[in-house]
């Protein structure tokens, strides 16, 4: 008379909290998830193939459109990988400006994460407050490179232009108010009993599992592994910056929240140092008119807000375009850990887990 049956349910591709076109096939026993399988590819545009067929210079616009929430970080990784492939040294001032913009981008990306994650869990207002500050960051992007989201910020060998007039004022204004704003978000979330209940102990991913699954970024640091490429393999001007790597050991959603909030504070600190210690000099290296590569292959990884973004480039002798262009997208690798986090939890925890992953489908599907 009674039948015990598991229900299969599709979370996505169109769903309010899968952050794009992610589809997760869930098998439910009541509300408990017994099986979880993420399915991706709905946003696949063949960025790697396109970049292989375009020159070194043109590839940047496609990196903007991979992880559109952190375009500057993608640009930075792309520029540095190309510079490594071609053997270019970048002037120091350009390095500082790159660092500065990258940290602004980290703040913007984390703010988007904070807003959407809080909204997934039901706190509507944090979303708008987070976007309020993100707006200022986008204005700064616009002032520097002319575009807000798809920045195309850097060039191989440095920058296109120096900082615009009035830039420093904008930055200082932002820094002056930012810590107050962070406190505002924290007043709404950190102590809140419901927020704590929804996040503490939810979607745990231990350090061993995280390393085995290749998870990087705040996800890994929330598990207690202080692995940050900015410190481990310093690039741009990070070797000269004084900052900390925030870590937690709980490895749950709340720990990831705390790590990201602390990272935003550290980013503000780095921006302050960049602004104070900005060296004078050119912003572009001396380059030949046409960039031609030698036979070479490089893998260059940088710390994007989501984790380790790596570019694997193969250069052909005398060629104008990369022979192979591969992106190690942090979201792609991090998303592998979703079944590990979600199975055994409730369906609401799947949403929290997806939120704490901070995925952007543009870079996962590429």
């Amino acid at each position: 008379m009674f039948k015990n049956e598991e229900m299969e349910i599709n979370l996505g591709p169109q769903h309010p909290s899968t952050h794009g076109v992610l589809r997760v096939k869930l098998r439910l026993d009541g509300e408990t998830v017994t099986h979880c399988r993420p399915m991706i590819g709905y946003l696949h545009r063949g960025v790697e193939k396109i970049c292989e067929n375009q020159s070194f210079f043109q590839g940047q616009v496609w990196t903007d459109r991979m992880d559109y929430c952190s375009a500057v970080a993608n640009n930075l990784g792309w520029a540095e990988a190309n510079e490594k492939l071609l053997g270019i040294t970048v002037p120091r001032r350009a390095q500082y400006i790159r660092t500065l913009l990258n940290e602004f981008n980290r703040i913007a990306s984390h703010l988007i994460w904070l807003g959407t994650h809080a909204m997934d869990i039901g706190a509507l207002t944090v979303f708008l407050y987070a976007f309020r500050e993100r707006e200022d960051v986008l204005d700064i992007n616009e002032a520097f490179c002319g575009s807000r989201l798809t920045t195309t910020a850097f060039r191989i060998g440095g920058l296109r232009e120096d900082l615009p007039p009035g830039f420093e004022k904008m930055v200082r204004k932002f820094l002056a108010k930012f810590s107050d704003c962070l406190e505002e978000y924290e007043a709404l979330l950190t102590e809140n009993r419901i927020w704590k209940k929804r996040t503490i102990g939810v979607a745990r991913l231990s350090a061993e599992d995280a390393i085995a699954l290749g998870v990087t970024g705040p996800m890994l640091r929330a598990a207690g592994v202080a692995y940050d490429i900015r410190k481990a393999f310093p690039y741009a001007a990070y070797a000269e910056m004084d900052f900390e790597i925030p870590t937690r050991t709980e490895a749950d959603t709340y720990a990831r929240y705390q790590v990201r909030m602390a990272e935003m504070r550290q980013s503000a600190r780095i921006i302050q140092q960049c602004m104070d210690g900005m060296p004078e000099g050119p912003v572009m290296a001396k380059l030949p008119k046409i960039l031609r590569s030698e036979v070479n292959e490089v893998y260059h990884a940088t710390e994007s807000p989501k984790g380790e973004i790596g570019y694997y480039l193969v250069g052909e002798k005398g060629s104008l375009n990369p022979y192979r262009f591969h992106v190690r997208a942090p979201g792609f690798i991090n998303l592998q850990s979703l079944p590990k986090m979600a199975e055994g939890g409730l369906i609401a925890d799947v949403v929290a887990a997806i939120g704490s992953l901070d995925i952007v489908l543009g870079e996962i599907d590429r």
Partner: protein
Amino acid sequence: MNKFLRTLLPADIAKGLSVTGKHFRQVFFTANRRKVPFHIVSEYPEVPAKVQPRFRGRLTMLKDEQGVIKCVCCLACEKICPTQVITIEKGKQEGRKMPYPVRYDFEMERCIFCEFCVESCGFDAIILNHQFELAAYNREDFSLGTEGLGQNMFEPSHVGKFSVADD
């Protein structure tokens, strides 16, 4: 006991309520005033949006003081464009030594506003202007050029004329 009391008294929730309540009060009493905007939204079509000086908008061709197109058909922009939206046809014009663009087509619907074309131009013949309201009703309205019906690369009036503020 302490924990029990903390559970019973919703101090954390009251803290959150005070933050949102503060913003409510500020916005509620200043919503209709222009001087002290505690709200962060701008009333866009009525109050025009401001862009930064380096903003990358629509591609526009420039003319020199005599009203002659500056472009000399070096095809640099056509080659650098990542999405191949520019098509140029070289030609001759009487009384002009440099080549003259007989046709300069720009398919705006595929343009990604990266400004590579402007960067590659050695003659300062093109710029990206500050126009960002780039909506139109018809697909062909996005094909701009130096010739043809209603296709104008020189003025920002062609697209974006459907703004609410204008009617």
